[in-house]
């Protein structure tokens, strides 16, 4: 126990400003404040990997490390779509995940937002469209905002979460599941 406490003390608090080289317009604290001003402490995110290479997942994981401290800003990942406000979708929507993605989206309560994360989900990336992939997430379920990158950095993901609050209106009960744009 003593060694654990000693290590915690030695580690200190890592959740501090990110390197400014990565973010020119706003430091991390401002992003976090803005997120909180829109969502309070209640934003809940559900993630679906719709055929990603696992690169985007690594960076989504990083959001929860002490440096980005996503949960500290009141945003958390949840285990069920029924608890979620935002659906974070990665990957070029493999045909084998198409149905599961649609069902996850339909299971979410309104209002809900969809954020397509990573080049595959926003513009098919290196995989294109073929017998096994549908391509953009927007071709399968309505998408409110996108975050590009291969993979996008954790900071880009934080910025994206802000974008969907500042620029997009929540969609209410789309009767049919179809392409957004």
């Amino acid at each position, binding site marked *: 126990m003593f*060694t654990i406490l000693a290590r915690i003390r030695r580690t200190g608090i890592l959740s501090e400003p990110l390197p400014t080289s990565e973010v020119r317009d706003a430091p991390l604290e401002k992003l976090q404040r803005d997120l909180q001003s829109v969502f309070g402490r209640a934003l809940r995110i559900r993630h679906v990997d719709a055929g990603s290479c696992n690169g985007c997942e690594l960076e989504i994981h990083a959001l929860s490390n*002490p440096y980005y401290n996503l949960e500290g800003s009141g945003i958390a990942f949840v285990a069920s779509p029924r608890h979620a406000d935002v659906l974070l979708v990665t990957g070029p929507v493999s045909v084998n995940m198409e149905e599961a993605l649609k069902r996850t989206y339909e299971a979410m309560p309104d209002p809900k937002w969809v954020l397509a994360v990573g080049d595959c989900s926003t513009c098919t990336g290196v995989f294109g469209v073929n017998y*096994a992939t549908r391509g953009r997430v927007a071709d399968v379920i309505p998408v409110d905002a996108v975050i590009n990158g291969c993979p996008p950095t954790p900071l880009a993901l934080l910025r994206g979460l802000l974008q969907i609050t500042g620029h997009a209106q929540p969609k209410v009960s789309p009767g049919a599941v179809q392409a957004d744009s």
Partner: protein
Amino acid sequence: MTDDSLKPEDLRLPANVVARHAVVDAEQWLACAQRLHDQGAGLLTLWGTDDRDRDGAFRVFAALLLPDQVMVLEHALAGGNTVYPALGHLFPVADRLQRALYDLLGLRADAGDGRPWLRHGGWPENIFPLRRDVGATQSYAIHAKPYPFVPVSGDGVHEIAVGPVHAGTIEPGHFRFSVVGEKVLRLEERLGYAHKGIAKRFDRLPLQEGHRLAARICGDSTVAFSWAYCAALEAITETELPRRAAALRALALERERIANHLGDLGGLGNDAGLAFGLVQFSSLKEQLVRLNQDAFGQRYLFDYLLPGGVVIDLGARMIRSMLDEVAMLGQAVSTLRAIFDDHAGMQDRFRDAGLLSPELARAHGAIGLVGRASGVARDARIDLPWPPYDVLQPGRVLRSEGDVAARVQVRFDEIMDSLRLCRSLLQTLPEGPSLVPVPVAPPDRLGLGLIEGWRGPVLIALGTAPDNRVRHCHAHDSSWQNWPLIEYAMIGNIVPDFPLINKSFNLAYSGHDG
């Protein structure tokens, strides 16, 4: 072909490791596989090609991993034949590989499980997408049929279906548990959800661009796969990789190993109830990928390797930063290891959980990290060393307990050894260029790239077409070998231990599904 014909030097296959090639008929296919099996070979992978445009035949290939070399068997199916002899009775991994080969190319093994594996109804059962008469961008409506899981019956037995969408941020896969109470009687996996048709996408791609796709076969093993691709192409074109470029690639590969092991150790701590472990290890990992960003321009090294070398050389300042980081990580990981080892509650979760006995591991061809935690002493960096591992001398990490605790210890041991290798690479970085031009590849060649990634060996088998293009490219991740073993490791464990046991294997979904 006789026994002797396996020996001549002219059967050498272009590869970064010792690799040989034999063209065999159906009878020899089985006989060779049997003989290689008896010599201690494991089946690494199976793939097929549609060569009807050339000589009217389909071909099926088997890559077998011997202790000191790779042996590729090639069997042409002429005259409209689409059936080849199954290898599942010799190598259990063949079963799923054969199912995948049928789903993609319509070549059927003459025995074994006949259920689809990668095809979930996303394309019709009479369409085989890797055939050359199927368009590159052709797509189909979904007609999914229920998948016949193997039922378990008995008093009080019920099923728990998990996935493909999971509770956490992980890749898609389905797990079907048959349980009594909370005890698992049987686990059956269903994978293929992340299948992206990568092999089809490779078709006709310019050879000089294929590394970008290879880097995205499995995002956490991007260095391993892009190196395997580059190694295959460089072998085909007889490009001699400068020692400096090889050293920088090895540095990237070892950093990938360290980053993933740090992430896993944090995750395992968390799954065993020690959030402290997650906080500590995820912080260390973040520091490592940030230094990647400073040194290589990317947190994860997706486009660091390209045919002929690497994109960015390392300056003196970055070498110093990395050496400092190696020292810091060595110290921090040692401290955390002592904490993990002394933590009774955690060890109680780790020990005897998800047991994979050395006997079972050997019988089923376990490889990579999972194998090394169950007494299978295979590491391609040591057994089939390619530059710079021929001079680096990685230490052999081996445990025989085969439980979650052993897989944790292997990760700790491998981090410490990789840190040593990084220090050695940084201190002795050879002078010279970090990138050389790669000439146009001759058509109709087959080359291999075999790289020991952090999970285990990954293989790229690359065939060339005229105009410097890809004719076919098959990628293999060691997860194919190790996925079925989780089904065994779960027997008798309780359902709540599945996340911990699964994490201790941490196998690839995308890397497996292709």
